C-alpha cells in the first residue's frame, strides 16, 4: 500500500493508470493521484494523454477484426478451462492436445486466414509435430506453444517449457518464435528454445538465428557477435545474430542477454530421444533437470551431497532406476516415498545392503 503511494508521488504516470483500474485503489491513493496531477503539469499531461488514448482505443471495440480476435481469445479461454478439468481426470501419460483451431482475419489487405493451433505436453511427455510447411517442432516435457501461421509470417508463441525447431526455409514467410523479452527468427535452421522461469535459453544447433529485443526505448547497441569461447555480456541489444554452436540466455529480471559456447550441444538437443546425458555435473543440477520430467519430485535432504559430481545417461522413462544406479556409485542414500524421493548422505559408507536394491 505504502509502496503504491510512494510510486504515485514519485513514479511514472503509467503506474497511476494501472492503479486507477485496479480493484484495490484506496482513497489515499486516489487523493494522491489527484494532488500530484494538480501540482505536476507534465505528470498530468502524461496521465491525461494515456487516458485519452484508452478512450480512443475504445473506438476500436466495434471493429469486426478486433471483435473476432476478442471472441476467439475468449473461446480459447473456455476451451482451456474445460481441457484443464478434463486433463485432471486423465491418467498420467495420456497426451492432451487441444487443437483449438481458430480462424481470424488479418489487419490490412485481403483476408489472411490464420489458424491458431495449440500444443501441450504433460510432465514426462515429449511430442513431435509436423507443421503445415514441413517444419518440425519437438516439444519437451511440460511445454505449451501456439502456432500462428499466416500468409506473411509464421509465428510461434512458446508459452511454457522447451521446444526444438527444425525449420524449412521460406523467404516469404519468416519463422519467428515469440518470447517474453523478444523473439527469435530462424534463418533456415535447427534450434531449441527453453523458457525457464524468468530465463529464456536459445541454442542454435544448425545455421543462424536472429534475436530481436522487444523492449523499446533502449538505444540499439552495435551488437557484437561473440567470438572465442568466453561468455559475453551484451546489454540489451536490439538485434543479435546467433550462430551454430552458440547458446544465448536472457534473464528477464536482470534484463541481461548473455551468449556462450558450450563444449557440447548435447544438453540442448539430446533430450529429443528421451535420453538425458550428464557429464561431471553437480548432483543438485542433475536432480533439478530430472525433476522436470517427473511428477514425483526428487529432493536433496543433505546439502553435503549437492556438489557430488555425476556422470550418467538416463532415460526419462526410468529416472527411478537411474537413481538406484547412482546410489551404488555415490555416497548417497535414496529414500523412496509414495509422493517424493529423498536423497541424503549415506550413513554407514559401504555397509549398504538394503533389501530394496534387489532389482526387478
Amino acid at each position, binding site marked *: 500500500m505504502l509502496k503504491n503511494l510512494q510510486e504515485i508521488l514519485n513514479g511514472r504516470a*503509467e503506474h*497511476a493508470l*494501472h*492503479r*486507477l*483500474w485496479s*480493484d484495490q*485503489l*484506496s*482513497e489515499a*491513493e*486516489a*487523493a494522491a*493521484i*489527484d494532488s500530484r*496531477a*494538480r501540482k505536476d503539469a507534465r505528470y*498530468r499531461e502524461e496521465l*491525461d*494523454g*494515456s*487516458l*485519452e*488514448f*484508452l*478512450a*480512443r*482505443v*475504445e*473506438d*476500436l*471495440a466495434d*471493429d469486426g*477484426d*478486433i*471483435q473476432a*480476435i*476478442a471472441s476467439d*481469445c*475468449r473461446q*480459447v*479461454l473456455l476451451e*482451456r478451462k474445460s481441457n484443464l478439468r478434463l486433463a485432471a481426470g486423465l491418467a498420467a501419460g495420456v497426451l492432451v492436445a487441444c487443437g483449438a483451431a481458430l480462424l481470424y482475419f*488479418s*489487419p*490490412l489487405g485481403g483476408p489472411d486466414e490464420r489458424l491458431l493451433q495449440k500444443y501441450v505436453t504433460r510432465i514426462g511427455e515429449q511430442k513431435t509435430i509436423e507443421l503445415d510447411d514441413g517444419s518440425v517442432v519437438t516439444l519437451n516435457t511440460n511445454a*505449451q506453444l*501456439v502456432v*500462428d501461421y499466416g500468409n506473411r509470417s509464421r*509465428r510461434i*508463441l512458446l*508459452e*511454457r517449457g522447451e521446444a526444438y525447431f527444425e525449420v524449412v526455409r521460406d523467404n516469404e514467410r519468416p519463422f519467428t518464435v*515469440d518470447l*517474453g523479452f523478444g*523473439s527469435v527468427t530462424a534463418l533456415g535452421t535447427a534450434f531449441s528454445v527453453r523458457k525457464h522461469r524468468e530465463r529464456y535459453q536459445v541454442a542454435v544447433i544448425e545455421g543462424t538465428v536472429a534475436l530481436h529485443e*522487444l*523492449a*523499446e*526505448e533502449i538505444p540499439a547497441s552495435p551488437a557484437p557477435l561473440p567470438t572465442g569461447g568466453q561468455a559475453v555480456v551484451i546489454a540489451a541489444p536490439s538485434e543479435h545474430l546467433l550462430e551454430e554452436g552458440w547458446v544465448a540466455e536472457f534473464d528477464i529480471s536482470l534484463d541481461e542477454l548473455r551468449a556462450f559456447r558450450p563444449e557440447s550441444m548435447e544438453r540442448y538437443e539430446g533430450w529429443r530421444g528421451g535420453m538425458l546425458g550428464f557429464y561431471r555435473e553437480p548432483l543438485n543440477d542433475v536432480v533439478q533437470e530430472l525433476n522436470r520430467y517427473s511428477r514425483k519430485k526428487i529432493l536433496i535432504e543433505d546439502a553435503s551431497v549437492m556438489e557430488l559430481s555425476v556422470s550418467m545417461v538416463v532415460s526419462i522413462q526410468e529416472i527411478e532406476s537411474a537413481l538406484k544406479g547412482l546410489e551404488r556409485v555415490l555416497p548417497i542414500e535414496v529414500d523412496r516415498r509414495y509422493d517424493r524421493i529423498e536423497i541424503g548422505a549415506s550413513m554407514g559408507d559401504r555397509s549398504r545392503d538394503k533389501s530394496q536394491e534387489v532389482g526387478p
Partner: protein
Amino acid sequence: MNRSFNPRNDGIIDLASQPRPGRRRLVEQLFDQHAQALRLFLRGRSVPPDQVEDVVQELFTRLMDVARLEEKMSDTTGSNRSYLLTMANNHLVNRHRKRKLRSEYAAAQRGNEQERVDERTPERIVAAQLELEAMKAAIMDMPLNWRVAFILQRFRNMSYEEIALHMGVRAKQVDNYIVRAMRRIRKTQRKMKGEGD
C-alpha cells in the same frame, strides 16, 4: 450528499421513475457494487469532490440506455467494474474534449477569425479514421502474447488475473505485456499526430 438539492441534477432523470424494472434492478445492483470504485476512480481523475456524485449519477443513468447491457454484465464482478471504469473514463475524456473545443471556439471568436472550430469537419473525421486504422494495425502487428493480453483487457474487460489464467503466465507478466502493448500503440499514435500537424 442530497441529490434533490443539487441544481445540477435537474437534467438527470431519476432512476426510480424509469420504466423497465428488470434493467432498473440490474443498474441498482451495479450501483451498490461499484459506485464506490467509481467514486475513487473519479477522484483519482481529478474530478472535484463536489462533482463526483453527479458524475456517478449521470453514469448510472446512462446505463439505463446502454444496448444489451444485460449481456455485457453477465460476466464476473471484475469485468463489470472494469467496464464501468472504462465508461467513466470515456465520459471524462469527452467532457474534456468538449471543453477544449468550446474554449478554442471562444478564442477563435475573440480573434474575430472566420475559422470554425467544429469537431466534425471532414478533415478531422478523416484524420480520426486514419489514426484508428494505424492503431489497429499496430495491435495486429504486435507479438501474439501482447495482442491477446491487450485485447482481452481492453475489449473483454478481463482482469489481469483472468488473463494470466488464460495465458498460463503470472499476473505480473500480463501487466508487462499490456504495458508494452500500450507503449507500442501510443508510439504509433504519436507518430501519426506528429505527421498530421
